[in-house]
């Protein structure tokens, strides 16, 4: 049986993808939240500049949400940002547990003072919840040499089942050659096993 992430890729189809107007206006719509419109220089705008490209040409990989705005953990209207890690390395297709464990270790750096400057940089980003980092490589010492990238994402409620962030693992659309921005794969492309696990 193919893995969950392979089924996500199969459901989305191979690039370049064509979406109908109904798709764009309906399930795939992701307008920037109102609060972001007041912050024109925010790096999260990169996501909105490249959202079409990501959907049409992006590749689906596993991501682990390291920390997220707490409003996302309950029902609500507003979309909010989060910090996630992902890897373009196919190793994590079948080793999601390693990505989740790395996410836990990174979150544990919050509020700590470290000797290693790279790790300290991470600790600062995680501690300062308002700082954005669209593409920051996680120190190799923490990843056993696998390329793992940390990024700021926008969690669009309409793309999550029931509009709530309940799990740390999400399929993410990346297109590293064009943009550091990423988006969560809309849940209409999630396989039944992932949808069931999410709602369980």
């Amino acid at each position, binding site marked *: *049986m193919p893995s*969950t992430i392979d089924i996500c890729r199969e459901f989305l189809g191979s690039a370049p993808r064509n979406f109908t107007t109904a798709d764009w206006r309906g399930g795939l719509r992701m307008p920037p939240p109102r609060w972001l419109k007041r912050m024109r220089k925010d790096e999260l705008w990169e996501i909105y500049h490249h959202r079409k490209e990501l959907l049409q040409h992006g590749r689906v990989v596993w991501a682990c949400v390291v920390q997220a705005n707490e409003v996302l953990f309950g029902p609500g209207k507003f979309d909010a940002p989060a910090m996630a890690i992902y890897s373009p390395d196919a190793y994590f297709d079948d080793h*999601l*547990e390693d990505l*989740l*464990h790395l996410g*836990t270790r990174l979150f544990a750096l919050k*509020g700590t003072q470290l000797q290693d400057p790279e790790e300290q940089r991470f600790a600062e980003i995680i501690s300062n919840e308002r700082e954005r980092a669209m593409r920051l490589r996680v120190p190799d010492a923490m990843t056993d040499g696998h390329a793992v990238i940390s990024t700021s994402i926008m969690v669009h409620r309409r793309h999550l089942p*029931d509009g709530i962030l309940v*799990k*740390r*693992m999400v399929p993410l659309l990346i297109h590293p050659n064009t943009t550091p921005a990423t988006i969560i794969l809309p849940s209409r492309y999630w396989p*039944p*096993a*992932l949808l*069931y*696990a*999410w*709602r*369980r």
Partner: protein
Amino acid sequence: MPHSRQQYEQRITRLEADARRHPAWFNLQVALLVALGLLAIPFAILCSLIVFLLACLTVVSRTAYLAILALQPLAARIAAAVYAVRLQLSVPNGIELRPDEAPRLFELLEELTRQLRAPRFHHVLITDEFSASMVQLPRLGPLGWQRNYLLIGLPMLLGMDSGHFTAVLAHELAHLSNQHSRFSLWVERAHQAWQRFMEHIGENKGARFGLNWFFNWYVPVLQPHAFVLARLHEIDADRFAATLTGARTMAETLVASHLGAYYLKETFGKGLQQEVQAQATPPRDLFHRMRTELWQPLSAEDRAAAIAQLLDEKTNFLDPHPSTPDRLAQLGFPSTMLGERRELPANLAIADSPNETAATILLGSALEPLLATLNEAWWLSRVDDWQSQHYTMVEAQEQLSRLPVADAEDVSLTAADLWIRAKAVLEVSGPDAAIPLFECVLEADPRHMECRYLLGQVFLHAANIAGIDHLRFIMEYDVDHALDACRIIYDYLGTHGLAADADRYAEWAETRVQQLQQAQAERQRLTTSETFLPHDWSEDDVASLQRQLAAISEVSMAYLIRKTVILFPEKPCYILAVMLKLPWLTFAGKSEEKVGLEICNRVKTKQDFLLFTVAQFRNRALLTRWKQLGNALIYQRAAAPTPPAGKEQHAVYH
């Protein structure tokens, strides 16, 4: 109106007896209650409208003020009604099964539907639980047009033969055939509508006028009626299914279902739990394993324990299903007494394990893909918790191995050493091994609150009432955790049929909440008539606080003092008064409230404190008194402005 758990239970018992004597009258009563609830909302709006129209009539002669005053409750009630009606029921969770994937299951469903003259199921969903249920959701909200969902647990299909599983399906179809779900849905709708209506109105006094009384009467009356109705539906569905499959098959199904659920929870589930320590990730083949194990006959020990548990089961006031012995008795198979021991009726044959499971027969080629999908779904849903539990255990084990080898009775160990060891042992070896160590901690330090709290919970989890004494100690001496301890005892007593005792704890909790509110009000008062003392924080703690405050650019000055309190003096009241430097145009920067919240979120200290943020500190008398305390001024940003003179203050945060 039942206020306490005991009154609630008495009311259910009385209603149940009434409903059995006059079922039609009871159903009518519930229907009237539902209608009353649903009509009361438009009636409340109508009343507001009449008041508004009357107020409009007076406008000509007097002033428009009255009409405006009456318009506000009317608008609030209309908005709340719209919100209440827009109740969204979520679609049940499961893996959808199509008729072409499992034709035999759908043929069986069709056959049963025809025999019971029930409406058809629109969706069949497979779940990972050992249960089956049905859900009806209206497509058009209050206007109806139901969509029917059948939820089947794959473990149930794996653990039963097709005859017993047919009885389970017949029970669920009986609910559908007799419109149980539709009626219950209306009861639920009335209940939810009022909850949402009042929630939306909030504290609007004008809109609430007259409604508080109705709401406080209606909900406690509707709840026991809804519960009794659900219980009657269960009994009715059993009887209905028995007419189709035979009372014996139905009774055997109830026992087989209990044995399967027992095995999964007690043997399979506990075995899985033991794997957490050994493996960093959950197994990827859970349902394949389950299929193999449910196929095996139960060991004599497990079987005896499962039947003993079944016979001990009592009908309770949380689950609308009657207990299995009561359901068996309704079907004509009452349990018998053999000396002091209760036994299953001798004429009830219980098969050890199915020769061929319902899953094999009814799902056919769909079984393998379903097993694989549920394996993956279960893995994805558990991996996070499993990992966190695993690494906590590994950490505890490492901690344990680092500790010096010593007996629990070793007198050289302090309470703190024993506590670390006890917690690690609890994680690694479970409660049985940890309890003696917890007791040693309490011998060394009888006021070790964390230990008492944990030990109390461990004891109550094992149904040992010694846990109540430990939790009562917390209620008496630990202000912060007293209410939690009380709630644990209340829940324990309530679920063990001791409603009267549980009510005593509920009363205690109510009193305590009032005391805490008074204490909160006392602590929040900041006037010159209060008594202030120098704080007794260590230099390190103060230095840490200073560093954290320095990182928030708006903070210009901070005072830390201790306030004398009458209520709960054992819990010291520290006040952190922070002076802020904010731009005079509030939209150009952060507001006082935002900075206050930022301090609450970012500043971490060992001791709790009450935060007062003051944009422009004006109470010179207080300031002078604090300065006299000596160590009160803990932080002053370089070139901070001189506080201007003036009067009172401030925003309070906790």
